[in-house]
């Protein structure tokens, strides 16, 4: 779409670049010739600037990750790590799993992220359908209450939830949660579902609201139930929106620190997530920075794969409507 804008620029500078072969003397330095060329032909200068800026920006963005790899490759206990690793020894990545049940930590985190995502998409879809496609009394106040809710920091919700899960303070003043719930996935999954739900509902509401009524009516005439229409027509047609909401939820939960750190114990067998796995290295094996770095790199892999697969969906989903609310 936007290629033509650039072509027009070329057209504008056409008269300038036509005669630049004539007066370029041999005695001019290369730099001066470049400068001349760029003044006549600003597109080239922009291209060079873009490459330069891009280089700087990518370095900024990637250097910290490269450093992590570099530390992982350095021998344990080495005080000054050179910028380029002396040798590449991938056995640290295996050692990570021997020192700490890191696979279990990873599994726990992925389990949390996956469960919350599925739950939020399912429950959020029902609500998104109601908000996006149905008329009912109290719609605006209910949507507004969601908006207000999403403004509150997790710290505010945390204290009562911690007491309910850990000290059996009655919820709503009515009933207490069983002691066993703390240390199970439920203690992390439920608060994080509630915490990620409002944004998912907003995104789904926007997308579901955009589907023309005719498509749903057609399916209904063919005998599909109301709920069937939601899952067979509306959701598939809103795939970019569902994907966006799902990916945002998954990444939020996988990268989250506050609840994951404070609502769990720190042993992998008790459903502690990656947070505790990485911190386990920091506290127990303080001399083995190479292992910490290797563990960190391993924990990035699942989300990195997700971003590779889904980057176009994320961008198009956000462009198409997630930001219109």
């Amino acid at each position, binding site marked *: 779409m*936007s290629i033509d804008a650039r072509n027009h620029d070329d057209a504008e500078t056409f008269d300038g670049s036509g005669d630049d072969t004539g007066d370029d003397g041999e005695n001019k330095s290369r730099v001066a010739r470049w400068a001349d060329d760029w003044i006549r032909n600003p597109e080239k200068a922009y291209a060079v600037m873009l490459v330069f800026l891009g280089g700087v920006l990518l370095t900024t963005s990637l250097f910290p990750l490269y450093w992590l790899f570099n530390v992982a490759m350095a021998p344990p206990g080495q*005080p000054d790590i050179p910028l380029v690793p002396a040798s590449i020894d991938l056995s640290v990545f295996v050692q990570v799993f021997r020192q700490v049940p890191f696979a279990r930590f990873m599994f726990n985190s992925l389990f949390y992220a996956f469960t919350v995502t599925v739950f939020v998409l399912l429950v959020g879809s029902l609500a998104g359908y109601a908000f996006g496609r149905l008329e009912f009394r109290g719609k605006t106040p209910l949507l507004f209450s969601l908006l207000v809710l999403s403004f509150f920091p997790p710290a505010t919700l945390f204290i009562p939830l911690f007491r309910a899960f850990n000290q059996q303070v009655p919820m709503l003043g009515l009933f207490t949660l069983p002691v066993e719930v703390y240390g199970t996935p439920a203690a992390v999954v439920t608060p994080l*579902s509630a*915490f990620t739900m409002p944004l998912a509902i907003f995104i789904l509401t926007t997308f579901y609201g955009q589907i023309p009524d005719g498509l749903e009516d057609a399916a209904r005439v063919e005998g*599909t139930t109301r709920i069937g229409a939601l899952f*067979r027509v509306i959701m598939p047609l809103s795939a970019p929106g569902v994907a966006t909401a799902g990916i945002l939820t998954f990444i939020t939960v996988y*990268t989250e620190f506050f609840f994951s750190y404070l609502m769990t114990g720190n042993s992998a067998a008790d459903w502690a997530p990656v947070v505790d796995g*990485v*911190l386990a290295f920091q506290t127990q094996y303080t001399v083995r920075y190479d292992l910490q770095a290797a563990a960190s790199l391993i924990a990035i892999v699942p989300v990195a794969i997700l971003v590779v697969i889904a980057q176009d969906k994320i961008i198009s989903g956000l462009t198409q409507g997630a930001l219109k609310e």
Partner: protein
Amino acid sequence: MAVEQAGPEVSDGILTRIATRTENLSEQAYAYLLLVPAFLVLLLFAFWPLASAIRMSFFADVITGGNLGGFVGVENYVRLLTNSNALAPAAFIDPSFQTPILEQALFMTILFAVLSVTGETLLGFLYAMLMKAEYKGRRLVRLLIILPWAIPIVIQGMIFFLLFRPGYGLLTEPLQQLGIFSSLPLNTTFDSFVIVTVADIWKTSAFMALLILAGLESVNQDLYEVADVMGASRWQRFRYITFPLVFPVLMVAMLFRTMGALRVYGIIESTSVGCSTVPSMTCLVTQLMFGSATLYGSAAAVSVLIAIVVGLFIMVYLLFIRQSNQSLGLA
């Protein structure tokens, strides 16, 4: 789309029976039914904790056992705002201004939010322009720019811990030689504040870039053609088309990030800077809860104060957005 096999009478599964039952509901009743699961979860794990936290903030602290004392009204708030809670690990705000700014949770957090949101907006805009331009290998560049967004906070912390660790980190020594950093940067408030801010900008500018890119992509490309025909320069195209049209998205993105920055906690813990060195507002909540004394009333009061600060920032943004919409003639 498998519509033909969906006749309600065909199978007798429980789902089908529920689906059939809903057919006879009015639109209003059906809407409420669909909202029940979501709002049930939110009631238990969001609305109730919220109300409960507000209520708790009006009750006295009990130093041991994690209980609450009697009703004390706004005393918890008064003690926090006058810095007269002897058991508090750090000042929320010190009206006598004897505590350095960075050791007062409120100002430290606000300064952090302002610096990091400004930094990540500028950097995020540059990233977004780079992701928007067309060239070979753009997919890869986009991927590499987005990547930090998907990195768990604990690993973000680990990276910057390794970069700045004394005697080990790459950046510590040069900064010490320049006289910017002290000998123990991870134990010095100013140095740690800088480290935490830089770490936050690094990760969140990727998210910012993603949102701004979405804004850039939704700008109608025909406008640029019109601008070209009228002989607009690159700067004019940015100034009169790109910026005004991306501005609303930019504001929403900044609002999101400000809310995030005001609740900063994870990066402070995971860089092993620790809450005692850089006391953010959320830090104060956890310290009051899990410190040597369990001060639940005061902790709840701090958590409500955080919500109030966030609310004030949101109001400023909304006022600003409304005003600029009016001046742009979009309202």
